[in-house]
């Protein structure tokens, strides 16, 4: 498959899906590979407005780190925190293996 002008190929979409931790079907990968270049082409105009002298704005209001006193406060009870979990055991989230060991 030829490389689109924006430089995003089907292989790139496969790589992005891996980064985003989404198993996409072949049909979904094909579809996104044909759609994303058009969307990216459309949004690429932002580069025209962005001179080196313009500061980036991440938030419409100034945001600072917010600290509080390190004191114990009421929080969710373990049973509430676990109530929506797909699986739990003895007040813990039960998850599939994380390391490559069985």
């Amino acid at each position, binding site marked *: 498959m030829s490389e689109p002008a924006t430089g*995003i190929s089907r292989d790139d979409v496969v790589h*992005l899906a891996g980064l985003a931790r*989404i198993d996409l079907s072949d049909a979904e990968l094909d579809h996104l590979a044909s759609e994303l270049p058009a969307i990216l082409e459309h949004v690429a*105009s932002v580069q025209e407005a962005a001179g080196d002298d313009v500061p980036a704005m991440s938030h419409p209001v100034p945001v600072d780190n917010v600290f509080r006193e390190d004191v114990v406060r009421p929080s969710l009870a373990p049973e509430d925190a676990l109530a929506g979990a797909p699986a739990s055991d003895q007040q813990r989230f039960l998850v599939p*293996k994380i390391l490559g060991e069985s």
Partner: protein
Amino acid sequence: MSTDLTRKTADELAQSLAAKEVSSVEVTQALVDRIGAVDGAVHAFLHVDAEGALATAADIDDRRAKGEQLSYLAGVPIAIKDVLATKGMPTTCGSKILEGWIPPYDATVTATIKAAGLPILGKTNMDEFAMGSSTEHSAYGPTHNPWDTTRIPGGSGGGSAAAVAAFEAPLAIGTDTGGSIRQPGALTGTVGVKPTYGGISRYGLVAMASSLDQAGPVTRTVLDAALLHELIAGHDPMDSTSIPDAVPPVVAAARRADVKGLKIGIVKELGGEGFQPGVEARFTEAVELLTSAGAEVVEVSIPSLKYALGAYYLVMPSEASSNLAKFDAMRYGVRVAPAGVDDPSAEQVMASSRDAGFGDEVKRRIILGTYALSSGYYDAYYGSAQKVRTVLARDFAAAFADVDVLVSPTSPTTAYPLGEKLDDPLAMYLGDVATIPANLVGIPGLSLPVGLADEDGLPVGLQFLAPQKADDRLYNAAAALERMLEQNWGGTLLSRAPELEAAR
């Protein structure tokens, strides 16, 4: 009697409740009955809590009978968009990945509404994780526009807007990331307000794009929106982006409703090509009314608006791809094991769960956001988009140096048929061109119904924009225009909506 109650505004209901002419149980029951009769055709709700709403109503009636001092809107029922956490009530964000999830805590907005004694009728339908402009991207099926049920209600808050337009709720809460309160407001003939960013707590709002998302009111009148706005606004220490300033006096502004001497700027770039003739016609007439009431109207230019849509469609998916990383099938949400894999790893389970749980539009935006944030492309895309926000903020500041408020049509078109733009994301994204700039720079916006387009008889909205923290200016100008329009129409626009067929 019960049908009359569903048609009353929140302010009328509050007055009748205070005067004990009607009980909250009667009002709530009337709305529950209305939902039962028409929601099959509209599908505004994903979850209805008749029992809980009636229990709150009975409690408020009881407390009122005892002479307790109550909040002004106590006993007036409300619907809440399914993106806000409601303790003990399902919250799905219109997504399969959260099917059946019941939050163990309340969003601050929800907690405020509960504390003020407003019966919560239920949760309203939305595009999945608020990604969409038509409410067709809900995993639970689309909402239908009460004006014509073959058409979209707008999005992503189509459920909230449709519930208010279909007389299923006098008040609703929406959230607006790129126009998700204002655009459905325009398409359903309701009033929708995106407050100043940080003016209303975002704690417990399931985030799509944290620097853009803002909760706000959806109502049938400007005064009702002001009453709800003032109730839910204010500083929240649980939200680090919450503004620690006093709430603008929006209710007083809505009651003042006087545009004499007000300077109003028409945004040159938000009109003309791409805007439906019927939308332009109603907009022009509304501006003439404002002029006749003593406002001074001038044309202003915001040159960087041509970059706003591009900047939005980079910032939003970038933040969404990051925010939605928390849906990892470990602590909540659905967990789907990959097919044909023995003893799968957490990473494999995560990937298969996210494939099964997310819909097409969510996947599209996550992949787009992952690309825009990835090494080598960050400066060209996400970094440039953030610079556009700076340029846009400077342009808006220059415009507001000359005028008090800005106006434009809210949406370039009226409601289009369901399915028409579903396979063309770019076409759908263009529908947000007039609403997106306010989110990028954090200013407030209000959409007011200004009539019906000649070509299709569907509602048209006019958008007011004001500087940050000057939300009261929107309410003053919109209330003045609303008063003149309703005098001309001899009633509200929504009273002209076709009667919905009760479910048979």
